[in-house]
């Protein structure tokens, strides 16, 4: 029925290969167009393939086998097409196509224009492999390829040393996460004997006992934390802003970073069997609060959004951790829309301001860039959780799940609320600093609205940010029914029943949002001095936030520098000095021993004579004694 679904991956992959070889000849706009078409084609195929799930109830989808990769360990190139995969594919290809379109404008004039689209298409293909993979090996394949593409795209402008370093940092930190994921895979294989999903998820209750399930869950959490930038492995995401903005939008907002959430959702049965879920939720909550606090004081427009992404991902982790898989996926979708919009908006601002990223040098851009301003305003309201926008519905559902969970859930719910307030604050602060107040640009910079090819995606995303919320309101849970078949094996957590409770929780969360937004609006719509005084009020805290609690230096001091010193000691002292020294030492010892024995050969006959006689005597004496003589 859907055996053509492999086309979803094939289109972007073909696009990547085509552009790789013919890119230079295709030239500026054409390469971009082909890239966008490939993404759009994938979206269409995904949409068509997803129709059956909407039409007939309870369709579980099925696994399409392409060819055998490593049959010995149950790892073949196969696609599992079920509602969860469909939703993810639609998000990835949908947002992906819009970002491709945006990039055509944004990357105008870059001499590696075609190469950029090769990498973007390759990224889409790898993300789809990850999402559609039919076994953990395929997921791992997509997992690493996505890491590769983010490496290539972050250090796209490789002539900038900081970009190259950021790319390497991203890949290495991801790799640390992959280490956890890989060991988790090994544990899975040892228990189930195969990596294929259909050989695992049904048999989880009978094979896995509590502790192994928790172990696998925690190891998957390490992998997810690496990829979705949770504590402690989030340090690479802010640096990843070195890459072009569409890259940040696509990879570091909408798709790649959600891979961790998808992994937890996909292996829901494993998390349900053990109690790793709680840990996931707690990590999510801490990350949310932590990143939000840092975002307050950031002055670089993209860094604010980067920390905001880390924070929002924290929310999703809370949801999937506590069993609210559908809530998590829902927030993932809405977040993809408005965060992509925010990033693309900031991209259009940067484009207009000729590569200027410092918000202190912006201000009053609303009339210069009205479309960008309005669309970003909508996105800001959405993320702040103001009803009826999408952010409100999805975030509220997560808070509801946390509240319903009770016990620890309540603590998470409170943290969630505080984070919601802070989120509203820093997003509104950003909006006001960029778009209102007196202009603070240097001379020679005249901001202008971006061309249509860049504003159209903004508008589409704005519409989605508004409309997406209605997909899963407590009144009509359409997304819930859609995703139901994927989560039959596990009990899905829901926010508290009844409109009364919903209204109460909603009121609290909206109140927090509005409070935050009002506070920021109140401060940052006024002249600059007020800001300074307001920021001074926090004293040292503000600097701490600005410097992201100096976590990078902490990692540098505790891991990177000692690591390098250790390897230098090992390489130059231990290896070159120690082992090699020993080997050369043996050589020298033999030579010096030889030199010493050489002295014995005096050349004097009579010396030899003495030796000769001594030997003779010894023999004679021995004969006498041993021969029973004396």
């Amino acid at each position, binding site marked *: 029925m859907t055996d053509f679904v492999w086309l979803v991956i094939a289109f972007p992959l073909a696009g990547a290969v085509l552009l790789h070889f013919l890119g230079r000849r295709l030239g500026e706009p054409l390469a971009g167009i082909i890239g966008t078409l490939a993404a759009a084609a994938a979206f269409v195929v995904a949409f068509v393939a997803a129709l059956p799930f909407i039409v007939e109830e309870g369709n579980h989808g099925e696994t399409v086998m392409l060819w055998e990769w490593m049959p010995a360990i149950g790892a073949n190139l196969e696609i599992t097409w079920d509602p969860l995969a469909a939703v993810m594919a639609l998000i990835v290809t949908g947002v992906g196509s819009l970002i491709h379109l945006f990039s055509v404008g944004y990357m105008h004039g870059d001499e590696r224009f075609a190469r950029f689209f090769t990498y973007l298409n390759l990224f889409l293909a790898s993300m789809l492999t990850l999402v559609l993979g039919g076994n953990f090996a395929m997921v791992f394949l997509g997992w690493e390829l996505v890491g590769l593409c983010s490496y290539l795209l972050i250090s796209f402008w490789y002539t900038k040393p900081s970009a190259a370093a950021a790319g390497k940092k991203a890949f290495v930190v991801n790799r640390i996460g992959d280490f956890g994921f890989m060991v988790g895979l090994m544990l899975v294989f040892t228990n189930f004997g195969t990596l294929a999903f259909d050989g695992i998820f049904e048999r989880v209750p009978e094979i896995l006992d509590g502790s192994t399930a928790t172990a696998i869950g925690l190891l998957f959490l390490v992998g997810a934390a690496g990829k979705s930038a949770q504590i402690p492995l989030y340090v690479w995401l802010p640096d990843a802003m070195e890459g072009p903005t569409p890259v940040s939008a696509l990879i570091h907002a909408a798709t790649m970073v959600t891979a961790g959430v998808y992994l937890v959702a996909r292996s829901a049965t494993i998390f349900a069997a053990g109690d790793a879920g709680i840990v996931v939720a707690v990590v999510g909550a801490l990350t949310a609060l932590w990143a939000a606090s840092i975002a307050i004081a950031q002055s670089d427009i993209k860094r604010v959004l980067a920390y905001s992404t880390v924070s929002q991902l924290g929310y999703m982790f809370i949801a999937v951790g506590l069993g609210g898989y559908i809530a998590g996926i829902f927030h993932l979708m809405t977040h993809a829309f408005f965060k992509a919009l925010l990033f693309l908006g900031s991209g259009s601002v940067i484009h207009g301001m000729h590569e200027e990223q410092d918000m202190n040098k912006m201000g009053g851009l609303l009339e210069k860039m009205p479309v960008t301003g309005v669309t970003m305003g909508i996105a800001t309201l959405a993320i702040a959780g103001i009803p009826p926008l999408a952010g409100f519905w999805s975030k509220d559902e997560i808070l509801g799940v946390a509240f319903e969970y009770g016990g620890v859930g309540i603590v998470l719910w409170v943290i969630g609320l505080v984070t919601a307030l802070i989120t509203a604050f820093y997003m509104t602060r950003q909006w006001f600093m960029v778009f209102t107040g007196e202009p603070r640009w240097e001379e020679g910079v005249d901001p202008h609205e971006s061309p249509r090819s860049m504003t159209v995606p903004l508008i589409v995303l704005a519409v989605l940010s508004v409309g997406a919320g209605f997909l899963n309101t407590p009144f009509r849970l359409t997304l819930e029914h859609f995703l139901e078949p994927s989560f039959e094996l596990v009990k899905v957590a829901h926010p508290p029943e009844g409109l009364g409770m919903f209204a109460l929780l909603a009121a609290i969360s909206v109140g927090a949002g509005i409070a935050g937004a009002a506070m920021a609006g109140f401060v940052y719509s006024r002249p600059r001095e007020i800001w300074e005084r307001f920021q001074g009020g926090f004293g040292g805290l503000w600097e701490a936030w600005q410097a992201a609690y100096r976590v990078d230096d902490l990692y540098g001091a505790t891991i990177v520098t000692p690591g390098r010193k250790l390897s230098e000691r090992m390489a130059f002292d231990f290896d070159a000095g120690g082992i090699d020294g020993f080997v050369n030492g043996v050589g020298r010892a033999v030579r010096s021993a030889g030199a010493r024995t*050489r*002295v*014995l*050969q*005096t*050349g*004097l*006959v*009579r010396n030899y*004579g*003495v030796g000769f*006689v001594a030997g003779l005597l010894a023999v004679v004496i021995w004969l006498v004694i041993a021969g029973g003589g004396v």
Partner: protein
Amino acid sequence: MIEVTAGWYLSLAAVLFSIGLLGILVRRNALIMFMCVELMLNAVNLTFVAAGRALGNLEGQVAVFFVLVVAAAEVVVGLAIIVAIFRRRESASVDELATLRG
């Protein structure tokens, strides 16, 4: 009366042999060393003869005969070498001939 047995001759030969042996080690002059070698050979001859007599056959004396011949040949060649070296080095001291040093 003490009867002179073969053992006596053997011990005398042993003494002579060791004197010859030590002589080689002590003296530097090649000729003296040569004489010491002759001394050792004669000591051996004595043992042959004494043993022959003790065992009652003449094999010992035949052996002595051959030892004599060998000694003669050896002296001839040895002295020729010494003469050749002497012509080269103006001294018959063995210690100078140490070029084969290690």
